[in-house]
């Protein structure tokens, strides 16, 4: 018996060591920043971002270039047939991981299931149905005119999976996609995901043979793991350690901007925040340069307009509001806020200007940024009551209107088009219009923009809207979100995808 067991152990040892011994298999161990709980892109729980961008198992129909312009991916072209119908041509010769070919039927199946499972996606698409025209053509019918369809098809939750991903009873088993890596295992307890190379990928042969993704939610843990060499590739160590880690031998850090903005929502339902002068004062009181350099340690950049300047539709003439406490005080005085009782805080009609400022702890840049902003506001005489809690614990305060300013980091390119963000954040009935902003001109212009199909004209139109909002300040933009990618020096040629939610694994990076 003992011989048998020891023999087995020996044998097991041999097999697992073999590929390494031959030195051929190139394994990449990734330290992911979020807990992995969902690997179904269309499951309705935002599994798309992980499985499409980080595990690179699935792919979307539409891709995006570094300026957020839409480019062909699994779809080779798309055109609008009439107000409510888009026709998508599907790339020929693409094979799923089970060897079957990508056809219009599987596209229809994927879109139907994501529309069924994910109300957000269904709403974004305004989805009615998909129609198979021929094996390589599918038509998407919407309930009303929706120029956003190609942009939504870049949203990772709409990634295409084969019907074999589900069993006969309609239960999800695993994602059978078309991407450069194939899923080997997913441990639901630990969240560990193992993917292996798909040699038949239509885009070329990946340079990574095997990738193990483990999640470590704590930034300090990720920093220590890459220092000790336990992971090869990870993101977002504590920002303060970026320079120290970069200086270590054998690892280096690359900093990029991601489509996310740190912004202060201003509760315009509360007096005196309905006063534009007060909002301007707040914006001019904030030391954005100091925040980027000393709070974010250079991981990020100062924000002017809401959109990243590299986005094709961004209004690049919008500069960050200058840090000018003197000007800020002038704005306050214009509206009658002065420090009459000499207590260091401005007041009006016997009332001190005090604001309740909220933020959450999940993103490491937010709490120190909030402290810094509160100190900035104090310097122009605005008193603050900061609240820093877990995201979920903030909801009661936000929902009961018990807040004045809300510091948060929001994604800007769920879909790569300006309409989505502007409509959702700034129209009177926008689902994420936390500020309670209502400007009839903006409402009308966004409505008009919906019907402009020509991209240049469309982007120009939305640039004008961005300019109006920049001046109105329903949200005060602080900084564009940065990501710090840490990898071992033996990983070369990593190409960052600026449209990715946090980061995208590049299948062509080489491990030496």
């Amino acid at each position, binding site marked *: 018996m003992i011989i048998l067991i020891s023999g087995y152990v020996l044998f097991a040892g041999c097999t697992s060591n073999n590929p390494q011994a031959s030195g051929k298999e190139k394994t990449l161990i990734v330290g992911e920043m979020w807990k992995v709980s969902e690997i179904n892109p269309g499951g309705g729980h935002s599994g798309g971002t992980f499985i499409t961008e980080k595990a690179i198992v699935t792919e979307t129909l539409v891709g995006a270039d570094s300026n957020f312009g839409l480019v062909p991916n699994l779809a080779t072209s798309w055109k609008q047939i009439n107000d409510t119908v888009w026709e998508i041509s599907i790339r020929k010769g693409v094979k799923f991981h089970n060897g079957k070919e990508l056809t219009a039927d599987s596209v229809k199946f994927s879109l139907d299931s994501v529309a069924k499972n994910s109300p957000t996606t269904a709403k974004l698409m305004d989805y009615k149905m998909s129609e198979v025209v021929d094996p390589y053509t599918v038509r998407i019918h919407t309930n009303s005119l929706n120029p956003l369809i190609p942009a939504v098809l870049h949203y990772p939750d709409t990634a295409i999976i084969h019907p074999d991903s589900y069993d006969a009873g309609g239960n999800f088993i695993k994602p059978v996609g078309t991407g450069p890596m194939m899923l080997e295992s997913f441990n639901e307890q630990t969240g560990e995901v193992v993917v292996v190379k798909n040699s038949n990928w239509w885009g070329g042969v990946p340079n990574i043979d095997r990738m193990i993704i483990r999640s470590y939610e704590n*930034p*300090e843990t990720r920093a220590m793991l890459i220092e000790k060499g336990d992971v090869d590739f990870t993101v977002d160590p*504590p*920002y*303060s*350690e970026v320079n*120290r880690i970069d200086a270590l031998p054998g690892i280096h850090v690359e900093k990029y901007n991601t489509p996310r903005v740190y912004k202060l929502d201003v509760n315009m339902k509360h007096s005196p925040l309905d006063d534009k002068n007060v909002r301007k004062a707040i914006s001019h009181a904030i*030391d954005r340069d*100091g*925040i980027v*350099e*000393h*709070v974010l340690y250079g991981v990020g950049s100062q924000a002017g307009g809401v959109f990243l300047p590299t986005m094709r539709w961004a209004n690049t003439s919008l500069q960050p509001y200058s840090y000018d406490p003197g000007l800020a005080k002038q704005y306050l005085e214009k509206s009658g806020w002065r420090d009459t009782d000499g207590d260091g805080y401005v007041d009006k009609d016997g009332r001190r200007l005090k604001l309740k400022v909220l933020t959450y*702890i999940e993103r*490491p840049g937010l*709490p*120190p940024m*909030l*402290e*810094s902003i*509160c*100190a*900035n506001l*104090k310097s122009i005489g605005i008193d*603050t*009551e*900061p*609240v*820093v*809690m*877990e995201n979920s*614990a903030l909801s009661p*305060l936000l929902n009961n209107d018990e807040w004045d300013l809300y510091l948060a980091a929001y994604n800007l390119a769920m879909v790569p088009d300006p309409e989505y963000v502007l409509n959702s954040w700034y129209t009177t009935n926008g689902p994420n219009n936390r500020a309670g902003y209502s400007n009839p001109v903006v409402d009308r212009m966004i409505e008009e923009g919906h019907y402009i199909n020509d991209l240049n004209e469309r982007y120009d139109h939305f640039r004008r809207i961005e300019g109006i909002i920049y001046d109105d300040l329903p949200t005060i933009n602080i900084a564009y979100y940065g990501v710090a990618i840490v990898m071992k020096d033996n990983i070369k040629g990593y190409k960052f995808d600026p449209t990715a939610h946090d980061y995208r694994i590049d299948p062509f990076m080489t491990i030496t």
Partner: protein
Amino acid sequence: MSRAFVYGDSVRQDLRKEGVWSELFTREPLLFVVFCLIGLIFLLALIGPFLVTQDPNATALGYKNRGPSLTHLFGTDYLGRDLFSRTIYGLRTSLFIAVSTILLTFFVGTAVGCFSAYCGGRIDEVLARIIDLFLAFPAIILALALVTLLGPGLLNMILILVIVQWASFARLMRGQVLSEKFQEYILSSKAAGLPGWWIIARHLVPNTIMPVVVLATIDIGHTILTISTLGFLGLGIPPTIPEWGSMINAGLSYMRIAPLNVIVPGIAITIVTLLFNVAGEGLRDLSNSEQDQGMVL
């Protein structure tokens, strides 16, 4: 009757005695030093605002994470704020919350425990079960739940800590009163027709309070630790009020490039908690030996 009166009066007289400090100094020099240090800490908290030259919340981003210097005795934190003034203000926060909590807890706990034990019967039965219920709950979990429920803030913090801690005071007081209330002097007071409140206030409390005083002293240390724990977990005190636990929590991300962010408040918590614990222990030993002497008498 005579024994109890002798004991009770002797304790009170001892406390009032003018030479109590010199006696403490000769009998327990270490304890004397500890009490002096605690006095110093209170003094530091009181005159803190006159002592520090810098606003504890004024950021100077360009001067972040600096080491100690003449202008910044303990260096600066991750936003360039002066760590010395933050530590002093943190002391004020901790002491203010801890002392208010202990005073309130002491009052509530003593009152409930005394009332429950003196009344006896059904009332005692019900109150004792309520006390058990509160004691059965792990303190930190109860505190966490309450923070989520009530939200952060100084006053809420005090309220939460009182809710978490009153039961241990009440239980101790109840036990003390239970063992005392059938003593002859109490029974004779009752027989003499004295009103209940008079008996409680004049006879029961003075003769049973000492162990609760000891508990209160030790609990100041515990309370400061609990405040820091809640602060460390990111709950409780809003970030613009300097507090040691939240200073450590926020400083963690900077620990490896600027360890003072964590070390300074960490040492502060250790020193203050240790002082109160040693004082409490010492007081207990002292009161035990007093009690022994009382017994002998």
